[in-house]
């Protein structure tokens, strides 16, 4: 498979339009060969989620995504019973349903983690657990157990174990520190903002046919904003790409300062950049 070398991983991602630096390619390669989950951290908009998407496309795997949110629990992540249908079945049978039948697969709602565990071993799976920092400690503790044996237990049905370990990516925005035990179980990679050179390549890869001068201009402007150091929220790679698209759509009358709202989403930041003429000469 392509992921068996660092270069292979790098090429596979590049073929999907994701330009990874060597450390990231190394991390992905290791995650695949060691069958260990990979924890990706980084500022918003540096393309953490995108890694999973590109990886799944590159390996022909199915991408299963679990978006974490506040208050997420087992029934959001693993399975739930379809209670509405159970009640209907109960009433239709006028009580003549036994419990075993009621808690059978017919009424089981499969959530992402159960999906990943039950996946066909012939078809690889990339499991993305997105924004794990939004979940709470209890869910993190459950996840720790899940990631170590890739099995889930449903009291009414028994334990179901994965026949093939998926590649697992976790992302975190660092709104809180994750538990050490979870970190220890994972490989770790910090995704930084790309260098201007690489960011230009990313724009070119993601927007085929964008003129060289627009890509250069946008990348230079974004670099200025990130260097400025006095902004609340810095633009990510996602913003760079959208900005390039905006300039492309506007054609000749495009001005960076007029389209600043594409890159900066905090009012004070926009004012500051305009006042101080940060983008002058770009």
């Amino acid at each position, binding site marked *: 498979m392509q992921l068996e070398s660092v270069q292979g991983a790098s090429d596979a991602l590049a073929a999907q339009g994701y330009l990874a630096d060597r450390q990231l390619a190394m991390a992905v390669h290791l995650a695949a060969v060691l069958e260990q989950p990979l924890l990706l951290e980084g500022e*918003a908009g540096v393309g953490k989620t995108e890694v999973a998407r590109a990886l799944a496309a590159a390996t022909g795997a199915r991408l299963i995504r679990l978006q974490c*949110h*506040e*208050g997420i*629990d087992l029934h959001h992540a693993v399975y739930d*019973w379809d*209670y*509405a249908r*159970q*009640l209907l079945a*109960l*009433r239709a*049978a*006028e*009580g*003549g*349903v036994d*419990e075993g039948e*009621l808690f059978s697969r017919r009424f089981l709602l499969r959530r992402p983690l159960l999906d990943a565990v039950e996946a066909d071993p012939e078809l690889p799976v990339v499991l993305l657990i997105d924004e794990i920092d939004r979940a*709470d*400690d209890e869910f993190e503790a459950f996840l720790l157990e899940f990631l170590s044996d890739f099995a889930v237990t449903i009291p009414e049905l028994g334990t179901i174990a994965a026949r093939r370990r998926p590649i697992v990516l976790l992302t975190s*925005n*660092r*709104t*809180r520190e994750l538990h050490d035990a979870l970190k220890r179980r994972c490989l770790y990679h910090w995704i930084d903002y790309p260098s201007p050179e690489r960011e230009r390549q990313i724009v070119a890869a993601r927007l085929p046919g964008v003129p060289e001068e627009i890509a250069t201009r946008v990348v230079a402007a974004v670099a200025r904003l990130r260097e400025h150091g*006095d*902004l*609340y*929220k810095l633009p990510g790679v996602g913003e760079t790409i959208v900005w390039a698209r905006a300039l492309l759509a506007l054609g000749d009358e495009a001005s960076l300062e007029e389209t600043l709202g594409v890159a900066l989403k905090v009012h*004070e930041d926009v004012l500051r950049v305009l006042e101080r003429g940060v983008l002058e000469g770009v």
Partner: protein
Amino acid sequence: MVRRLSDLTAVLRAQGTRVGVGELLGAVRCLREVDCSSREEVRLALRTVLCSARADLERFELAFTAVYGDERAGLERDDPLAQLGQIERAVMPRVGIADPRGGDAAPDAEAVPAAWSEVELLREKDFARYTDDEMALARELIARLARRHPTRLSRRTRATRRRAEVPDLRRTVHASLRTGGEPLHRRWREPTRRPRQLVLVCDVSGSMAPYARMLMQYMHASVAARRRVEAFAFGTRLTRITQELAGRDHDHALERAAAAVTDFSGGTRIGAAIAELNRAHGRRIGRGAVIVILSDGWDRGDPEQLDAEMARLRRAAHRLVWLNPLAAHPDYQPLARGMQAAVPHTDRLLAGNSLASLEQLASIMEEM
């Protein structure tokens, strides 16, 4: 024996430990199994039965001493407590109950606050005038205060007996199995409460030096007591000290924090510090936190910057509280430039110069 035991449970309940009839029966049973002439055995046995959380242990020790007497009472005093002066001893927790052997009525819950009133002297004393011994004594009280924290409603729910907003379909289905498939008994779930994120930002510049030690103790106790707390210190620049303050060992934690903060007792640039907080740690603070700034507002930085940064911080926070030791003075007016810029953006301005004012902070946070 049973009477003493019920005295003990009464004291425990008055302190807030949950002791039910089950625990009481368990205690009676376990006392049958141990040598009741040994004070130590009784203590350890009761401790096992009556405590169910780490926080209970300490309360149990106090209650046990109150009811069964202090074993050191008659012994030679070479312990450090004996060397303390009168005021210091006043702070030692005491529980005011009738002589348990007198056997009148069980002590009522009212007795406890009355006993605490002996602490009044130290409670109101300004931190700047504390002696080292007093600081050591106040530590326990501060740790107690630090355990009181703001909460918020969570999106997690739990089963409830009351009629609530969210139907509990799982339990309703199970219940309907008992009524022939007819969902006669509906079940409900209600949201749980979670600790709200708390961010403590302490000024350690020269003018705050008399208070910084006690306030750092409070920060350490807060970080040690629970998760979802972030601690920062600033003088001319901001340092995150959450990780340094973590861990139960009090002295080590404070040493580590002091080593991390390079600008102790220097100048102050509050605006720059808050700016750093907004930018470098904006995600960590997140939205909906209670932010407590501990500073006297003597600022050598740019008031305009402070104004703008406070406005930003206020928008991201749930509540913004400013503790200013100078505000303890009855005639205090926020005249310092820094305070003038900051006050319009704060929800509450408290003193934070004594145990009493930290207690006030704790009560305010619990209401948030």
